[in-house]
């Protein structure tokens, strides 16, 4: 029994209690929404919900990688804003040019973060804070501090505005592909396992002979790339590069990652659960919008941040209790 490869549901739930809880909460909210609101399950709400949240999902994916190594990336919002401006400028050349170049721009910011953290040994939150400022300033400079309209004649806006099968926005399809690719990297490759090991113990990983610096550089570059992709979706979905957007996106991403059960101290995390966390946060606000629409409550948009903070607080309390329990168990063993 112990050594069987057969799937043991009880054990799985036990081991992944938080992500299971997130999935259940997500399902429950969807059912609740469908039963309570007329248009909740309709294709319009479905599509716009996924389209809008695809940006937050992809940023959360990159953030998940960074947090798993025990780091943090506060620059994602500004990098996304910068990349949206670049993508808007490149939109006349079509998506096939704008998308890869905007991604590259994002990755360059990520590489700069990695350089500061690994080579200059600047603490991650300081390095990425500086990049956040720098990218924001750069975005404002190149855009002249106003939105940059995209070229509607090219295929650029297809990504953010068109849907496959009249149901799935292309943005969410691309994000799904990225998510699956990152999931495979994390679960199925040595690089992914190294990333997890670094968060569990950087010194131990070094002594095991793992290529720690390479893996750390990888996560920051990926996070930059994800922010770049989010910028393209932003520009494509709203028809303009948005240098002023991206404020507090890093917080949404961190909240989504943490709600998804990733330990803030690193070493433990999952891609699907992060997606679930991002969807759950998005759905909470979607439902609040519907409640507002019915007039039962009047929640202003400003509640979003309060609720995000409360979520983060609850999850941190939950995590500290969990890790404490684990520690005392380990000590008595």
């Amino acid at each position: 029994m112990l050594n069987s490869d057969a799937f043991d549901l009880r054990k799985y739930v036990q081991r992944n209690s938080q992500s299971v809880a997130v999935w259940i909460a997500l399902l429950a909210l969807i059912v609740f929404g469908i039963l309570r609101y007329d248009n909740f399950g309709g294709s319009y709400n479905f599509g716009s919900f996924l389209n809008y949240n695809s940006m937050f999902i992809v940023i959360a994916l990159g953030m998940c990688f960074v947090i798993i190594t025990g780091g943090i990336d506060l620059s994602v919002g500004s990098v996304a804003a910068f990349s949206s401006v670049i993508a808007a400028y490149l939109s006349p050349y079509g998506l096939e040019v704008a998308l890869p170049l905007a991604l590259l721009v994002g990755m360059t910011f990520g590489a700069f973060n990695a350089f500061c953290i690994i080579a200059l040994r600047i603490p991650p939150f300081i390095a990425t804070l500086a990049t956040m400022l720098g990218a924001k300033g750069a975005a404002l400079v190149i855009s002249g501090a106003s939105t940059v309209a995209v070229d509607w004649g090219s295929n650029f806006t297809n990504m953010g505005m068109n849907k496959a099968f009249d149901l799935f926005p292309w943005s969410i399809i691309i994000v799904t592909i990225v998510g699956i690719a990152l999931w495979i990297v994390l679960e199925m490759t040595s690089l992914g396992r190294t990333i997890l090991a670094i968060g569990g113990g950087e010194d131990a990983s070094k002594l095991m002979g793992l290529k720690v610096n390479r893996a750390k550089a990888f996560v920051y570059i990926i996070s930059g790339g994800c922010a770049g992709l989010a910028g393209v979706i932003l520009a494509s979905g709203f028809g303009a590069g948005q240098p002023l957007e991206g404020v507090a996106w890093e917080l949404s991403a961190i909240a989504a990652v943490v709600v998804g059960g990733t330990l803030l101290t690193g070493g433990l995390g999952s891609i699907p659960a992060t997606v679930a966390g991002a969807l759950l946060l998005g759905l909470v606000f979607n439902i609040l919008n519907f409640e507002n629409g019915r007039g039962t409550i009047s929640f202003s948009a400003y509640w979003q941040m309060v609720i995000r903070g409360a979520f983060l607080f609850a999850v941190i309390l939950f995590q500290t209790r969990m890790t404490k329990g684990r520690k005392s168990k380990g000590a008595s063993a």
Partner: protein
Amino acid sequence: MTVLLEMNAIQKAFNGVPALSGASVEIERGEVHALIGQNGAGKSTMIKVLTGVYRRDDGKITFNGHDSVLTNPREAQAAGIATIYQELTLVPLRSVTENVMMGYEPKRFGAFIDWPAAHARTREILTRFGIDIDVKMPLGSYSTAIQQLVAIARAVSLDAKLVIMDEPTSSLDSSEVKTLFGVVRSLREAGVSVLYVSHFLDELFEICDRVTTMRDGKTVGCARLAETTKLDLIAGMLGRDTSEITEAGMTEFGGGTAKKGDILLEAKDVATGPRLTKFNMTLHRGEIVGLGGLLGAGRTEAARALFGVDPLRRGTISLKGAPAPSQPANAITAGLGYLTEDRKAEGIIPDMSVRENMTLALLPRMTKGGQIDRARERKIVQHYIDALGIKTADMEQPIRELSGGNQQKVLLARWLAIEPDILILDEPTRGVDVGAKREIQLIIRNFVDRGYSVVLISSEFEELVEGADRIVVLNEGRCITELTNPGVTEHKLVQALAQTSEASA
């Protein structure tokens, strides 16, 4: 048998302080070779030089017939040297399989980890060691013993030619030790060499072929275990010939002269964890009680229990008849002081001045209306600088700029300044030069002569034997026996240790 590893005349210094000065080891193929020595003798440095964590300053290493120029742990692994470090260097949050396979996972299509194969391989390796566990569970959910064996399993799975084990049994119970020894024996049969570092001498006789003894960064001897005795090994580590261990006084101490006062501190059957399971001690007014034992015997843990740092799992401690304090702050108020073993990590605040370091424990009693009474502070600090002969430019010099001995005197002054009834001193003279050592011993003696009491921990047996009025001998977390001065000699203490570890084995 042929030689697998030869380390010759290795030199290594840190910031000009030599850690290794001409250390040599030779290991044959399929041999279990023990490496022993006191704390600070250079065993860990030796291992880290071998595995490329440190770069040697001088000397030659030949491994498997080649000159070795390893510069990092990964190269060492690739060359066939696997290390199981003292502090576990695995990743507890990750699964057993990952910890065994990390960096060497079986792949499908050249890129993707073949998890079923990885689990199967891990299971197969562990079964060979007689371990049957769910390899998909996080490593941290298993006992330390299992984790230790998993670390060894990782080493073996890498087809190592040499496995280095640093204190592998320090956290294992006796049945787990048996399993470990089985593994070591099967390694030997497979032609793998083992470098075995341990303080538990009995183990060496059971499992090892030869033993190399280190002292002060040098190797002082290599012998076949079949041809040596435990007494010889202990004498070698301490740097004495057994015949030379005499009753002549060699320190500034003179134990056994104190008249017993009333009981100040009493510990009964105290346990705080696996490293301290049964500790008993009484301390009278005006007395020095020594805690004797080899490294890992539970002496520091006993000190931490007395000072209220670690919570008690079992047993009681009473201080002047009242229950003992459960927090360092309360312990200080109750009249206890604790000079810690690790001066750097738990003692000095490097960037603070001598003055600020010295008065840290005294602060609560030195305030006037929320303000620090600076005039009084200066007076106290100047008093102790003069009384203890602390060599410092002035009291504002940052403590990190002082020599080890003077740093230690400042810390000693930190505790003397609170005028405690009892001082717990953990290795008070470690890492200080000979002159400072004598001075510190004198300070301690004077303190006791004024009617106060001391709990003294020292790895230097002569300091213990000559300084303490009584010695409580610990082994593997338990009190074994108690020796009373006058009449205690180093020889007797060594014998007590040798016998007790025999009795417990």
